[in-house]
C-alpha cells in the first residue's frame, strides 16, 4: 500500500525533517507513528498525502510512484484517503455539515445519500446535533471530531490521522479509536501519528518510532491481534 524507500525531507532553510526513511505499510494494516515533538511525524504523513514532495527517495502509494505523479492526478489519489490534520484545517466559516459533506460533494454523491451519510458519520463522533453550527464556534475537541468525521465519511482506502486525540478526553478518544478500528476491520489501512503512549499500548498495534527525523525503532503488533 505505502512504501517509502530511502526518503529524505529537507525543508527550505535547510532543516532535515526526515533522514533515510524506509517503511512499508501493507494493505489493511493499522500502524502508529510516534516520537517526540519535532521528530517528523507530520512530515511523513504530509509526504504521503502529497502535501509536499520528498527531497530524495521514492514513495509508492496505491502502486504509484509519487515522485513522478502528474499534478492533475493528485485530487483523485486524495479521494482514496481521509486525512485528520494536526491543526484540523476546517473551512472555518462553513457549518459542521458542509465541512463533512465537502468530501462527498467532490465525489458527486447524490443529495439524499450525502445527507444520510454525513449525519451518520457525525453521530459516530457524537456531533449529530451540531451539524448546523459554524465550525469555528466549536470547542477544540469538537473541531477535532469534525475533522475526523470528514476524514472517514467517504470510507476511504487509507486513513492518515495526525494526533487525532490530542484535544480529546479519554471517552471521546476511545470512541474515535473505535471508529478507526472498525474501519480497519472493514479493510481500510490506518496510519496514526501520535505521542500518546497510553493509546498505543492499549491498542497494541505495530508502532514506528521516529526521533529527529531518523527511524529510531519499531514495535511489532501484539500477538493475537490482526496485522
Amino acid at each position, binding site marked *: 500500500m505505502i512504501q517509502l524507500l530511502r526518503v529524505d525531507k529537507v525543508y527550505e532553510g535547510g532543516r532535515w525533517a526526515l533522514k533515510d526513511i524506509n517503511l512499508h505499510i501493507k494493505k489493511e494494516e493499522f500502524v502508529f507513528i510516534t516520537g517526540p515533538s519535532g521528530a517528523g511525524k507530520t512530515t511523513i504523513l504530509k509526504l504521503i498525502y502529497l502535501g509536499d514532495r520528498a527531497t530524495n527517495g521514492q514513495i509508492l502509494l496505491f502502486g504509484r510512484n509519487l515522485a513522478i505523479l502528474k*499534478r*492533475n492526478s493528485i*485530487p483523485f489519489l*486524495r479521494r482514496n484517503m481521509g*486525512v485528520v490534520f494536526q491543526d484540523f*484545517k*476546517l473551512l472555518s466559516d462553513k457549518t459542521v455539515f458542509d465541512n463533512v459533506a465537502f*468530501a462527498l460533494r*467532490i465525489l458527486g454523491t447524490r443529495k439524499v445519500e450525502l445527507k444520510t451519510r454525513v449525519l451518520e458519520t457525525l453521530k459516530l463522533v457524537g456531533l449529530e446535533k451540531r451539524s448546523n453550527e459554524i465550525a469555528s464556534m466549536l470547542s477544540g475537541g469538537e473541531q477535532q471530531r469534525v475533522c475526523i468525521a470528514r476524514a472517514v465519511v467517504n470510507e476511504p482506502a487509507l486513513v492518515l490521522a495526525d494526533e487525532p486525540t490530542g484535544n480529546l478526553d479519554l471517552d471521546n478518544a476511545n470512541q474515535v479509536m473505535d471508529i478507526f478500528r472498525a474501519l480497519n476491520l472493514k479493510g481500510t489501512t490506518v496510519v496514526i501519528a501520535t505521542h500518546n503512549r497510553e493509546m498505543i499500548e492499549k491498542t497494541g498495534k505495530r508502532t514506528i518510532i521516529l526521533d529527529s527525523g531518523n527511524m529510531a525503532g519499531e514495535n511489532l503488533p501484539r500477538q493475537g491481534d490482526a496485522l
Partner: protein
Amino acid sequence: MLYRNLSFFLIEALKNLKGNFYLHLTIILIISISFFIFGTLLIFDTNIDRALSSISKDLSLVVFLKDDVASGSEDFLKLKKFLLNYPAVKVVHYTSRLDAYLDFKKNFKGYEKVVEEIEDNPFPSSFEVRIKENYSNKKELADLISILSKWKSVEGLSLSKDWVNHFFSFISLIRMVIWLLVALIGTGLILIIYNGIKLTIHSKGSQIEIMKLVGGTNWFIRGQFIFEGIIEGLLGSGMSLLVLYLAYNLMFQKITGAFSFIFPQQAFSFFSVNDTLLLIGSGTILGILGGVLSTTKYLKN
C-alpha cells in the same frame, strides 16, 4: 452531476459573497468605478467625435451687404440668385440688419445697454453661405470669393472658421487629456485588478488549500470562485451603467442644452444598446478572469 455542481457552485458563491462582504463590495466598487470613468469618458468622446466630424465639414462664408441694399431690391435678389445657383454653394441663409442687431443683443448679454445707446444700427445685413464639402479646396471657391469681393452691393467677406479653429485646438487638447487619463487609469486599473486578485488569493488561500487537501479537482474548486467573479463583474458593470444613466438623465437638460448650442445639428446621446451589452459583457469576462486567475496560483502545486 453537472447541474448538481453548478447549483452548488452558485450557492457557495453567494455564501462567500455574504460571508466576505467587504472584500466583495470593494471589488465590485472598483470594477464599478472603473467602468464609470471609462463610460463617462467614452460617452463624452464619442459625442464630441461625432459632432466634430459633422462640424468640420461646415465651412461657411459670410457675405456682408452694404447698408443701402434693401432685402427686396433687385441687387439683393440678383446676388441671392447668384449664390443659390453657384455650384459650390450648399445652403444660403439671410440675416437682416435687424436680425443681426437682435442676435448681437442675445449673444452679448450685459452689453444691451451699450447697444441700445448706439443711435444707428451698426450691424450689416449678411448672407451666410455654407460651402459644399468637396468644394472646400477647389478653384470654384476662389472664384466665388473673387467675384463677391468685386460685387458692388457687397461690403465685405468673412470666412467664418475663426472660432471653430480655436475651438478645434481646444477640443483636441481636451481629448488629449481624456485619452491621457484613460491610458493611465487603464494601466492603473489593470494593476489594481491584478493585485486585487492576489489579495483575494490571500484571503481565500487557506480555503482553497483545504479543499485541495480533501481531494477537490481544480475545476471543482474554481467553480464557486468563477461564479463569484461573474456576480461581481455583472454587479460592478451594471451598477456603473446605472449610475451613469441616472447621472445622464439628471444632467440631461444641462448637457444637451450646452451641447446643442455648440453643435446644433447634433443630439447628445447615451450608449447604444449594443455598447451597453458590450460593457456588461466585458464586466462579466473580467469577473470570470478574476475567478480563474485568483485560484490558479493555489492550484498550481
